[in-house]
């Protein structure tokens, strides 16, 4: 199903590219899980089929908060070269780290916002952890393309203001089973500037660590 729609939309995309560079084209992505439920926090990335990716825009500062011993947002897609601040909104210290190949770093125990942001200079998935709170997990998706969006609770993501080009569109999700590349679809926005793509993702079993009990409260939540 997915393959057939991709083939037809790829033809359309090449036309759209020619039609104009003006960013009026958009891709609407709908991601559901294997049970057909809308999947939030899926990152949809669109990469133009032709031409090098556009140069990254001036470094916009991004933020991944630590609120209530969780990373907020849990999934943060950024374009390569984006500096990200990890402000600590809790009244305890955190020690954020990553062993991911895309970005290894470690922020020693800190409170408040560290002075320097972490610059994610390589595309890839960076898994964030806190060395103090084992259950804390967050993802910074470093995209080589500036065209990406994250699904909301309804499983929809809108990639707007796109040049009307043909795109390879892929989806990533923390629980994505299999290779990210396998999700790739093409969307040619050249024809009518709009494309609607949908993914049904097989998800891995979630292996989350339980939260530690909160002092003063009984049990876990």
């Amino acid at each position, binding site marked *: 199903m997915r393959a057939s729609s991709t083939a037809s939309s790829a033809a359309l995309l090449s036309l759209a590219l020619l039609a104009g560079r003006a960013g009026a084209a958009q891709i609407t992505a709908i991601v559901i899980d294997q049970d057909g439920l809308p999947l939030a926090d899926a990152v949809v990335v669109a990469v133009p089929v032709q031409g090098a990716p556009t140069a990254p825009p001036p470094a916009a500062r991004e933020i991944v908060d630590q609120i209530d011993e969780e990373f907020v947002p849990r999934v943060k897609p950024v374009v390569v070269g984006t500096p990200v601040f990890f402000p600590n909104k809790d009244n305890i210290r955190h020690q954020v780290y990553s062993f991911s190949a895309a970005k290894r770093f470690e922020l020693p125990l800190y409170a408040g916002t560290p002075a320097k942001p972490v610059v994610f200079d390589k595309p890839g998935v960076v*898994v*964030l*952890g*806190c060395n103090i709170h*084992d259950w*804390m*997990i967050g993802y910074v998706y470093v995209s080589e393309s500036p065209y990406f969006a994250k699904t909301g609770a309804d499983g929809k993501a809108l990639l707007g203001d796109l040049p009307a080009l043909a795109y390879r569109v892929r989806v990533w999700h*923390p629980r994505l089973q299999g290779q990210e590349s396998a999700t790739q679809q093409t969307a040619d926005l050249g024809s009518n500037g709009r494309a609607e793509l949908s993914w049904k993702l097989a998800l891995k079993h979630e*292996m989350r660590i339980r939260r530690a009990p909160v002092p003063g409260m009984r049990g876990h939540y």
Partner: protein
Amino acid sequence: MPSPRPAGQGRRGTFRFAGLERRIVLFVGGLLIPVLGSVLLVVNEVNQRNARSAIDDGLAVGGRVFERLLEQNNRQLTQAAEILSLDFAFRQAVATRDLRTTESVLVNHGARIGADLMTLVSLDRRVIADNRDRRLVGQPFRFPWLIDAAEIEGRAAGMEVSEDGQLYQLAVVPVRAPEPIAWAVFGFLVRGRLDKEVSSLTRLGVSFFGKTSGEARWTVLDSTLPPEQLQAQEQMLRGDAAHARHSLTVESPQGEYRTLIMPLPERGAIMIVATLAQSVDEVLAPYRRLEIILLLLGAAALAVSAVGGVLIARGITRPIHALADMSRRIEEGDFTHAAAVEGKDEIAELARRFDRMREGLAAREDQIRRLAYRDVLTDLPNRTLFNDRLRVAMELAERERKPVAVLLLDLDRFKQINDTLGHQTGDQVLQQTARRLGALLRKSDTIARLGGDEFSVLLDCGVEAAKQIAQKLLKGLDEPIVVGEHSLDVRASIGIAGYPVDSADPETLMRHADLAMYAAKRGNLGIAAYDSTLGRHRREQLSLLSELRRAIENDELRLTFQPKIDMSSGEIAGAEVLVRWQHPERGLVPPGDFIPFAEQTGFIKSITRWVIEAAARQSSRWRALGMSLKLLVNISVQDLLDTGMPDVILATLKRHGVPAGSLGLEITESSVMQDQAAAIAVLKRLRALDIDISVDDFGTGYSSLAYVRQLQATELKIDRSFVRNLVQDEKNRAIVLSIIELAHNLDLTVVAEGVEDRSSLEVLRKLGCDLVQGYVFTQPLPEEEFRDWFAAWKPAAARTIAA
């Protein structure tokens, strides 16, 4: 003597008593053995059931404990592994992908929780590092299913068999950074850890077996059991046994094992089964000890009961044996053995009664023997025993050619003592005599009392020696015998006969001694030895009796008369009638020669009747001639005991027409003694007939005047022995005087007989004697001469004589 009981009978008795012991033992055993046996069976049954139920309970609990322990260990292991895997340094090292560092971190952190196996597995399930063998690196992980489970559960644990065949409890956790980047596997060797723990908690034998599904045999992975038992268990597991959890019993050379089979969750290619085993014997051991104790107690109780039974039986049978033994002895005449039975029970009581019975029997038999062989009065052998001993002695003497002598001793005047002083005195005289004689003899000599006052002595010597001994015996009797207030002169006559000189057989020897004794008595010899002439004399005596009979028939007896003169008037007051025997061949026989013999034989009664008849006839004749005088007839003991006597006298007097007053009777005081009451009754009747009674020979016996009065006497005749020497003997005079005075006080007439001279006569007159009789006037005279003398008698002359 009864013949001894046949031996078999006694043995049969013994056997029966042994049977009592056996019966008691059999009874006790028969009672105890089934009871103890049943108790043991029941106890054994209950114990077995308890033990088996305890074993199954223990196995069920053990199974739960095992599972809990397994679970708990898994959890602990997993938790420890998780904590390790979250260690930042560990994660960092793993994340670096530096093999050496990763390996050392793995080993280091594994050591923290004491893990035996540490493996790091990549997400694509290949071994990154392993503490055991580096060659494993790059190989596929052996237990991918664990990771499958861990991917879902976040962690996984289980029992697995490693490459080297060791059983491990494994935990698999992800290494997070913070997403899983690898799998950390930590394992504990089951051997020496889990097995020990289970075993010590449950006290069960723990074993683990494993096999791949294709194999038939199970491999022992680990066990706390001995190898032989394992083999049995392995065999048991073959087939379907390992498919479900259940318990069964396994027999092995070590005994019976109750085994709980617990298949572990099957995940890989290797099936693993855990077994918990309990030795039935081990559980039964305390019960077995209890049973052994019970058995021992039972055996002890049985033994004690048996011994006790035997003892009780012995306690019963031994006294019974003793009693049986005693009664057998008694049967054989042996009374000496007491039944040796002690105690207070019934048997002892029976034994005491038996003993008393035995003593009674012994005493009575002794008594009987004494009565048979002993003289009761003197305790000397009696005639039977003496004859027996004499026979034995003579038989011995014949063999050894030795002499034997028999003394026959008879007391003189004993009859008189008996008559006058009573039987009790007589008996004491006999007893004392026996003692004296016995004291003079040797122990070996036998002295016996043959009866009455007759003793016999058996001596082992000749006649001459016997004479000396007889002499000694007589001398021993010289001393008066004192009985109460009486001092009695006892004299004896002894006859001696000897073997072999006098006779060869005991009876004849005794008869000869008897003859000798009579000869001694008659001749007043004291001692006489037998000689052949004595036998003849005896024969003479026998013929005397027939001659006496003939004498009465042929009227050979004659009366003589001796007058009694009244001292005051000089008149003839009467005459004593005496009897003579005009023997056709021997001439005149004096009364002393045949009257004692007639008294002995009882013929005296015939003589007395004849005399009374003759006297009455004479009195009648003389009265016709004008001669009126009282005739005094002597009567004997036998006459006094003849109750018909008074009637005979009365009839005789009537027949001759003679008044009773003209007849008097003379008795001796001793003649009354034999049967006083009868004699006195006769005397009273005579006295009632107005027949005077005169007591003859007064002073020679032991009677008193009071006694004389009892005899109804009217007259007293002082014995001639007092009268004879009256002139010279002052003592006699005093006696006579006192007799006269006392007699007069009692209103008795006093007669002095045997007066031979005038001086005596004079004395008597002075002493107040009433009547006098004797040679001074005349000797006894036959009828015609007396008539003449009577006619010639001048009373005045008599007075003159007296004067």
